[in-house]
């Protein structure tokens, strides 16, 4: 009953299809769990589940999307609660950061403040901004902007309509860019008034964000 040759061949096929996506899964896992240890656990869980259900994978279809569906489901079912406790504390620290940004004195202005804004950003600030997003926004932003999945693929991964993906992505990006402005000022990439000018552009419906935060 145990056909070891078959097992070996299946494993090799699985490895050849899946291991190329390890970095992508780890990178996404890191932004979902916000720490390396949980990210490694999550990705390891994902690979094990994927291997166990490999007979369910339709050959020739999108392996990366299939793996990400398992990753997000595993995260939502298993890790979300664990990570949430830490988020509350980090969220409070973040509020303090926002206040600093608002009360800071503008020193200098430039004719076209946004031209080099995103180019100059520090990856650490980008990461902090992603981590600040409520989970529903964070998921779509990770899938679209870190992993470059299409709207349709994201809809399939998250099992929701494409319209929902698009609205969450738009609002998630605006919220993220707002966070980024704050960090850019903190780290000296941007001065106060430049940030004020830019911030009009990244307006977000606060009520909606609060509602999502409550649900998360």
């Amino acid at each position, binding site marked *: *009953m*145990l*056909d070891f040759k*078959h*097992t070996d061949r*299946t*494993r090799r096929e*699985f*490895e050849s299809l899946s*291991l190329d996506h*390890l*970095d*992508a899964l*780890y*990178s996404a896992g*890191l932004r979902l769990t916000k720490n*390396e240890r949980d990210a*490694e656990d999550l*990705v*390891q869980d994902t*690979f*094990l589940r994927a*291997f*166990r*259900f*490999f*007979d369910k994978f339709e050959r020739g279809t999108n392996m990366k999307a299939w793996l990400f569906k398992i990753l997000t489901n595993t995260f939502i079912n298993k890790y979300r609660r664990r990570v949430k406790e830490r988020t509350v504390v980090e969220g409070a620290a973040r509020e303090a950061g926002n206040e600093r940004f608002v009360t800071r004195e503008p020193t200098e202005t430039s004719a076209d403040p*946004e*031209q*080099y*804004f*995103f*180019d100059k*950003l520090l*990856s650490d600030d*980008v*990461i902090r901004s*992603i981590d600040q997003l409520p989970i529903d926004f964070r998921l779509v*932003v990770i899938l*679209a*902007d*870190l992993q*470059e999945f*299409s*709207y349709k693929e994201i809809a399939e991964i998250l099992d929701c309509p494409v319209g929902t993906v*698009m609205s969450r*992505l*738009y609002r998630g*990006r605006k919220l993220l*860019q707002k966070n980024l402005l704050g960090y850019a000022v903190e780290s000296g990439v941007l001065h106060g008034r430049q940030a004020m*000018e*830019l911030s*009009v*552009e990244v*307006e977000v419906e606060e009520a909606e964000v609060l509602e999502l935060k409550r649900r998360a």
Partner: protein
Amino acid sequence: MTHECRKLEETFLHAYVDGEFSPEENAEVKLHLDECPVCTQAVRLHRSYKAAMLRANAVAPHPFYDGVREQIAGESSPGRWARTFQRPSAIAVAAACVGAAAWFLAGGLSRPLFARHSLVDDGIAIHKLALPLDFPATDPRSAQQWLESKLDFGVRLPRFSQGPRLQGVRLSSVHERRAALVTYSLPQSDGRRVSLLIVDDPEPQLAGDARRVADREVWLSRAKGFNVASWRNNEIVYSLITDLDEKDVLALVQSAEMR
């Protein structure tokens, strides 16, 4: 700066940068961009945002890559077996199987596959024990109804036009799978016992020599003084176990109707 162009929405431009449009649609957007500095600026901003996001991607540490590979290698095979072998009791069974396989290989490779024969061997062992019946019955219909309420797979008791008389059924297990043992007696052979082992066995290959009996593929094998005839019906394996000789076993199989 807010998006002031009345012709194209900002979400539309995002979708354009995100690569959601067809080549024709892209060409139309480009035509508009050539004459609209507001939209051009929005597109440039979104492109630089996306580039910044991509730079924030992390790379898995190298030891982790090896760890994942090792973990996959530690798993047996995808699907049923992988799940089965997570249970400690199953690990003990697996260890016993490995031991038995080693013994079998040492004894030579006259038989093609150890594991297949264990179904035959298990069937014979269960038959020899003659354990008490869970549900004594002489009527196949009531025995079938009782089994249907106890088993997680569909089962069909054969009707023998002559010969074996139903005594009853007993629930059993083979390789951690539920099985039913149906017991018959043979009046014309001094009441000798015949057992029919019914197990949901998804393995494709049955053990023994293939024969064709009454439009059925039947596999015959012999061990420990017993003849075992196995056939498959709707993915379920039926094995008739007796100490009758081969000719009489095949006659029994021939008279069994699987309706």
